């Protein structure tokens, strides 16, 4: 069985508000939702946190291209109920925070330590 490593990233994420699914379909087709969503995402975070989130996105793209199906990534908005519960459970203080396989925790936008943890866990043979 192939080994997969779970990577959870808790960060302040830009928020966009969506309407009913069926309305979204229609709005999307009229081009109506494009500017609405763009405006929301543009003002979703202060500049410094937007830079942090961009760093998260870039890192996620990098680890996907490196490990492909070997990792399962979840990005969780810190300011959400799930983010709150993860923060409490893992006693996180600063964001972005990375949790590898539910055990190892890393904070900040220097993801080198998290990269090493992922590499190490991928090298560890999977349990039968």
């Amino acid at each position, binding site marked *: 069985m192939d080994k997969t490593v779970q990577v959870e990233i808790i960060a302040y994420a830009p928020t966009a508000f969506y309407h009913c699914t069926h309305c979204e*379909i229609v709005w999307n087709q009229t081009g109506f939702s494009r500017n609405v969503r763009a405006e929301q995402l543009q003002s979703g975070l202060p500049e410094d946190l937007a830079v942090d989130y961009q760093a998260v996105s870039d890192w996620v793209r990098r680890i996907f291209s490196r490990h492909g199906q070997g990792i399962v990534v979840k990005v969780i908005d810190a300011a959400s109920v799930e983010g709150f519960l993860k923060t409490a459970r893992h006693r996180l203080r600063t964001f972005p925070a990375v949790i590898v396989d539910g055990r190892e925790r890393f904070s900040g936008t220097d993801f080198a330590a998290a990269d090493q943890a992922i590499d190490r866990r991928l090298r560890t043979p999977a349990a039968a």
Partner: protein
Amino acid sequence: MNTLYIVVISAITIYLAYNFYAKRIDRNVIQADAKRATPAKMYMDGVDFMPTNRNVLYGYHFKSIAAAGPIVGVITAANLWGWLPALLWLIVGVSFIGWASDYSAIMLSVRNEGNSLSAISHKLIAPRTRTILFVFIFFYLLLIAGAFVGILAAILSARPDVPFGILMLAVMGLLAGQMLYRWKMDLILVTAIVVVVTLASMILGPYGRHTDADGKLIQGPVGQIIVSVNTVFNNLTGGKPVEALSTVDPTFADPRIPAPNAEGVRPTTATFDAETGQIKTLPSYLFWALFLFVFSYLGANLPIWRFAQPVNYIGFWVTLLAIGLSAVGAVLAPLTGAVDSTGALIGQFALPAVKTLGFAAEAGKAWQPLWPMLFVTIACGAISGWHALFGSIGTARQLEYETDALPVGGGAMFTENTLALLSLVAVSIAGAGGGGGRFAAGVGKLLSAVFGTAFEPFGTALGFGAFVVIVLTVTQLVFRVMRVTLTEWVGEAVPVARNANFSTIFSMVLTLLLVLTGTWVYLWQMFGAANQLMAALSLLVVTVWLKSQKRNPAYALWPTLFMYVTTLAATAVTARNLYVTIATKPELGALPVGGAWAMIIVALLLIAAALLIGWDGYNAYQRYAKGRMEPAAGAAGAR
């Protein structure tokens, strides 16, 4: 009927519909295949396209449970027809239409490379339809805003125990935005502070309230401050209503209209003249409407992180606690035989099962026949989506496996249905009261089944708080969307519309004019019709797509036809009601009559738009039925 039966019935229904109908469609018609690569895998970029565990995706949807639709619609319908028709429509609607709409929408996008549905709907939605839809959407947003501001202003002006909690929500929202995103304070600490302060402020509303020896209601310290504020504004006109703003609501759903007394007669109050049926607009009502506009202005114009997101974050916790604990109360009440402050059993329904089917129309009176009006009054909860709220990317681009679409899309719809059923329980056990008041009273009773009878007034205040929070968090975003839309729509021709302040205030002025007409239920029903028309259109896109794929479209086609015909009929009935109950009665005053005519025109525009859209959709379906795949005439220019 008691609350436990509703819990059992809904659990069985959801189980049967999900396992024996939804899964069958998923397997036999859509043929979801776990081995087929989803767009999330094909175009994985870690940003937009990212395979995500289905439990996480479901959580994305569920965390935005704070939607107003499943609560407001159910309250209104239960008041009009009784709890049984509402229950049946919720169960049948979600089982055969609701889940199908949301699930299909996701699958359609997944099968179209996670992109927009342009390959399909470009052919369906021709340039003419696109323009019509754009205008249609603006009126649709206007109707939501009008209906919501109307009911909230009436609650805030009539209930001195409610506004303090909402005021503190705004303060805590601003504070949370600053503490989290600017000062980067500890998330747990900030959450604890803002949620506890907001909850405490809501619960403090009725603190110290009592009746004196003469039976007069005396407010506690917090309520007294609000009463004083109301008095200050009402003294501007010597305590008299603003005559020019007197209005009527033939449906008697406006919260300013008192409930009938033991003899079945509505008494005359400061805001209602029983003899003429007129609703009197006091300056305090206008003040609270203005307060709502200021709140919404902040949500519409400040950066999302500054106000809208923190308010939603706090609002979600408030809603979760109020609704979650009410659900516990609904289960406990019949088992423990809990009683309310009057000694009545909490678990028993006080609302009649069927008040009326409403098919008999009376000349000059509002007509509310069960069909079609029930089916637009309850939109969300039976067929509609949910206000999904998440970090930047759409579900269709994140599905790890095609087989996740049903538990994520369909499952979230069933969850919203559960919220609607719980609202129905709360409204049905409350008995007296109207609109949000009945819902809040029900929540108060359910919470007292958990915390004891003495908690009932505080539970009711929390119920009001949760209701206002749910509606208000949506309202502020509606204004944000209207602002951007107006800028895009007329910004070229009218440069001043590009100014965010102008477009927000202009949208608010239009909304205020609608609110002042007083016809809250008519506004809600027109919004419901507009919403359901979009549901029909979305299902139509699915139907056409299924036809183009040579699959059996029946599971989407029949709901499409039902929703389309029902929507048209409901809009026509609403226009008729406005005409016979207000527009042709000049003695009611210029404001309600003018407002009624404006809404009749909106209704006729909606009908015309629906007919044109339906015609285009029919032609698209026919093209596929005949095996012709070329786009609609002129569609090329629409890209």
